[in-house]
């Protein structure tokens, strides 16, 4: 809270500073150019380093990704309740920022609903094979029509219908199937309305005849419990035809769920995991003992730490209450399990405050369990696994060699994929690929398949940095990438066959992040490229040298007047050079963005823009010149600010808090050590998790002092 006020103050000053100059300095030439350029004071260059302080992370509510992954690991269910939660706000570029992760009545309500549902679904008997239900039309529970045994039901009147209730065993997407044909070839086709409960799920045109009845199907998401399937005849206007057009329904049924997978018999089912003893409804004492052991087994994993007898007793009382209210054993034991999932001990990552003696803040090492959670939420966005819990119980986690070994193990685990969405998706903006909405007339090639391929390309590419010991500079300079046939067509490359293929030398037009369609598209407007966004992204996300936002009252540049001869973006951006205020920042951003102009708004290569030849040459303020990405990317990848900047982003994500001046010293050390180790992702992670801020916690002065101007600043 105190820090935020300083930030507010310094940001306000920064906005004023934009009137006279720009923070952004010069890629490829860290020394100032001829124009007055204020450099961001970084610890590497500042004269007075702030005293180091391991800091403290505010009580951290699990964000949506963390919640989903945690309950999946905890319970073994495949539900993703987090999709329903309010979006998490972010701070310092990441939505795992503890200060920004607020709690609201709405979130609480959804947590309660999610917890009830998770426990209910986890306790369901596991489906060992897909659910398939079929009833003959003439055997359905409810018939308004002409039923003939063995020959189905003829629906012929406006009120004709056939309906049957089915018990859905597990929630999921099911296929509602109707076998039917048009009863009278002279009055074909007929039209049916399919309903589940009161909801219409489909209207189908039955154009098959008795000789070859058709199977008409629609996929519907269903909850566990009774589902009333019904099929009604539509006639006249409703069906878009005239008169009655009879339809014979041979059968109706339900199949699913769509994502059914046969359970692995070597693994316990979610139900078996929870019910560690044989429940009984008969013997009250045995039931109580069983409930206690279920809670005692569940709670340390749910709360990610050992629990004491009082905590188990408190939950057991809910079971007792449920029994007293007349609930059956499983319903009663669901109450404490649900309560465990809406307790702050589950919803928040709790770290005890250091003992406070005297007015000065004190530090302490995190407990091993707290450290285990920091590790697992950093690398997996989930709870610790058995091995981490074991190491925590043994008190071994603070050992640097152990930490390094765990990093290697955890990065090799599939759960490390969470870094792709959680860290990479936000650091490099690739999460926004899911929200891309390019103008359909200007980019008719864009479709859901291309969107998916864009996302996969960046994920597979970044994953090589998790699995191979690659220097992170190759994110920019790497000549390799991953494509499938959809991207091959988009990139004008030969097809590669099914699936994604790594191409190690993609030629001069592809390879590395900055030549990937997804990132180029995310950094574009719906109808055209944005050299400014692209340039700003490089400065902000790769070099941590963000330019200030434009001063107020600045007009966006003009699109072409209708009828006027087209101009290139480069010509339009010359407007930025007229005003000295604009120029100070845009002379840094624009050349980088214009160097990427060969890639259009969805990242396809182009030689011309509106018929005008693209000029991708540029000169950076320091004097370095380039022509296109082949020359620009090496300049960027060798920029000395890159290692520190990558470190800073990953450190921010790892801790879930924004860096302050007191972190500068740590960050310099981490970047330098990682650089000495080849600047691999592994090296960076290891130096972060062994650093003091990751393993320690500082107490909070109390009460918080009044906001004041202090040495803490950007």
């Amino acid at each position, binding site marked *: 809270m105190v820090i935020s006020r300083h*930030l*507010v103050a310094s*940001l306000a000053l920064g906005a004023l500073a934009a009137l006279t100059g720009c923070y952004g300095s010069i890629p490829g030439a860290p020394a100032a150019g001829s124009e007055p350029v204020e450099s961001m004071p970084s610890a590497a260059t500042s004269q007075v380093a702030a005293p180091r302080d391991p800091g403290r992370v505010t*009580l951290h509510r699990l964000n949506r990704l963390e919640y989903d992954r945690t309950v999946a690991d905890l319970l073994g269910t495949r539900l993703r309740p987090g999709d*329903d939660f309010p*979006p*998490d706000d*972010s*701070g*310092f570029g990441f939505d795992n*920022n503890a*200060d920004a992760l*607020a*709690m609201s*009545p*709405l*979130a609480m309500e959804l947590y*309660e609903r999610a917890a009830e549902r998770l426990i209910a679904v986890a306790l369901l008997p596991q489906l060992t094979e897909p659910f398939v239900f079929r009833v003959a039309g003439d055997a359905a*529970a*409810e*018939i308004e029509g002409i039923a003939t045994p063995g020959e189905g039901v003829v629906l012929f009147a406006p009120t004709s219908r056939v309906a049957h*209730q089915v018990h859905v065993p597990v929630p999921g997407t099911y296929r509602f199937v109707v076998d039917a044909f048009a009863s009278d070839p002279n009055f074909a086709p007929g039209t049916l309305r399919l309903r589940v409960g*009161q*909801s*219409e*799920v489909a209207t189908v045109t039955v154009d098959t005849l008795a000789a070859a009845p058709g199977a008409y199907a629609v996929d519907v998401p269903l909850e566990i419990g009774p589902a*009333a399937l019904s099929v009604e005849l539509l006639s006249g206007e409703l069906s878009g035809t005239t008169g009655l057009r009879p339809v014979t329904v041979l059968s109706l049924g339900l199949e699913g769920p769509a994502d059914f997978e046969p359970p692995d018999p070597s693994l316990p089912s979610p139900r078996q995991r929870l019910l560690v003893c044989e429940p009984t409804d008969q013997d009250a004492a045995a039931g109580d003992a069983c409930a206690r052991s279920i809670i005692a087994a569940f709670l340390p994993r749910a709360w990610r730490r050992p629990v004491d007898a009082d905590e188990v007793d*408190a*939950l057991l009382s*809910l079971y007792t*209450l449920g029994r007293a*209210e*007349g609930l059956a054993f499983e319903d009663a034991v669901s109450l404490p399990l649900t309560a465990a999932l*809406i307790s*702050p*001990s589950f*919803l928040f990552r709790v770290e*005890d*405050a250091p003992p406070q003696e005297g007015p000065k803040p004190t530090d302490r090492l995190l407990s091993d369990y707290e450290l285990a959670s920091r590790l697992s939420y950093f690398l997996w966005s989930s709870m610790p696994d058995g091995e981490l819990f074991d190491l925590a119980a043994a008190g071994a986690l603070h050992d640097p060699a152990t930490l390094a070994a765990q990093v290697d193990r955890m990065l090799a685990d599939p759960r490390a994929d969470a870094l792709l969405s959680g860290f990479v998706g*936000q650091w490099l*903006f690739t*999460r*926004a690929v899911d929200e891309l*909405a390019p103008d359909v*007339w*200007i980019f008719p090639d864009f479709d859901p398949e291309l969107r998916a391929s864009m996302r996969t390309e960046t994920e597979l590419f970044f994953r090589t940095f998790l699995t191979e010991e690659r220097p992170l500079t190759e994110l920019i300079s790497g000549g390799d990438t991953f494509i499938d046939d959809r991207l091959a067509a988009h990139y004008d490359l030969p097809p590669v066959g099914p699936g994604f293929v790594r191409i190690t030398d993609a030629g001069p037009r592809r390879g590395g992040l900055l030549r990937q369609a997804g990132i180029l598209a995310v950094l574009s407007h*719906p109808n055209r490229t944005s050299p400014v966004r692209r340039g700003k992204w490089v400065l902000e996300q790769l070099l941590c040298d963000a330019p*200030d*936002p*434009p001063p*107020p*009252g600045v*007009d*966006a540049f003009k*699109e072409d007047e209708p009828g006027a001869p087209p101009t290139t973006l480069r010509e339009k951006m010359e407007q930025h050079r007229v005003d000295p205020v604009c120029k100070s920042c845009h002379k840094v951003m624009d050349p980088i963005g214009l160097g990427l102009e060969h890639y259009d708004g969805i990242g396809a290569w182009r030689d011309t823009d509106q018929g005008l030849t693209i000029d991708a040459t540029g000169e950076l303020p320091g004097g370095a010149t380039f022509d296109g990405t082949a020359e620009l990317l090496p300049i960027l990848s060798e920029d000395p600010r890159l290692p520190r900047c990558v470190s800073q982003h990953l450190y921010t994500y790892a801790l879930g808090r*924004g860096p302050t001046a007191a972190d500068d010293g740590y960050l310099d050390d981490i970047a330098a050590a990682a650089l000495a180790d080849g600047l691999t992702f592994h090296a960076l992670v290891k130096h972060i998790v062994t650093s003091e801020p990751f393993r320690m916690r500082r*107490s*909070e002065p*109390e*009460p918080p002092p009044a906001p004041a101007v202090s040495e803490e600043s950007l």
Partner: protein
Amino acid sequence: MTRRTRHDHVSAVPRRQRFSRRAFLGGAAATIALPWLDAMTPTARHLARAAESGADRPKRLLCYYVPNGIHMPAWTPAQVGTGYDLPPILAPLAKVQSKVNVISGLANWAASVPVAGDHARGTGAFLTCVTPEKSEGGEVVNGRSVDQEVAAKLGHLTPFPSLQVATSGGINVGTCDSGYPCAYSRNISWAGPSTPLPKISSPRILFDRLFAGADPHATAEERDRRRRLRKSVLDHGTADATRLQNRLGASDRHKLGEYLQSVRELETRIDALADAPFCAVPDRPADGMDFPEVLAAMQDLIVLAYRCDHSRIVSFMLGDASSGRSFPFIGVSGGHHNISHHGKDPQNLADLEKIGIWEMQNFARLLEALDALEEPGGSVLDNSLVFLSSEISDGDRHNHDDLPVLLAGQAGGQVESGRHIVYPDGDPIADLFLSIMKWAGVEATTFGQDGTRPLPGILRA
């Protein structure tokens, strides 16, 4: 012919009470509300309850936000007073023109600060009239919004003191606007300076929130037991939080305070909903709707929330600040925010006019639906106030004066509608909010940074 019925579960609900899922899925927005109308004739029961719990004429407030400003030349009526000609963007309001006031000339001065970030700031200040503070770390400092002032006064009358509804949730990539945390761009309801109220953007979730747990088959005893058990489970959370308090520092205890407050509100609501009469509702909407369908479904659910008297105070965001949404379904292909920086380009201006008209078509449908609900003293619209505006006026200028403002409804007779009212001196919109608060019974002499009196000419003396 054989007519058999083995079970009557399918036909348990009288046919006229059934709701087609088309209500939620109909692509042609014009037809969306229609299947409901029959079943939505308010039943005396709910309205009787409304009458018991409040005044004879229940006071409801809806605050409706549209992003990126409005093309004002096609919005502002040429004449003042009643009987003005509707400009193109307002033309869709023809059927309810007599129940709407167009208010010109108001300004949100708190948003008018010479710093970049007009969209975020205009949205943060939209209902607070307080200049939001910038920060990179996500911490926010704003004011309390007018809907929450009203909710503090009237919210206790309904299970949901207020609802926050939207059509999109927004993504969390990058900073939202020039150093302003995303919370300002995404929330217009603020319970307090640092407490934005998150909104619901999925019709399914809003539906669940309003109606899940309303099991018509459960006996009173079963419902009562369920209520007791839910509260016991929540009580455990409270106890756990209280235990944790002792181990934590001040900031962490503040976070736990948010948790405790949230649990308390949920417990209150469990009781309120349990006491509420059963309200016939349509089927649960499915996921996977496109934007016009979501908008229509959300508007339907707002009407339904009023009809069932689950809430009387709603804020609605048609999009987040500086929304980049495109409108291919009306032939507008560029992103809204981009187009709003029109540079006086005729194509951009034409597109902005189309977007404005489309927004007003939807808004008109909402007003018409509220006007179709009869209750003591007139229609629901007659008894309500519906405020509509945007975070800026002109997309190019980013100005916060000459705002596009509609105030629909007659506030139970306290507002004379059907007028175009002009305030040539740039009166603060905070004064309009003071008028709304006065009507709602909120005792306040100031609001936000510049509200000092109820805006003259709004409430009848």
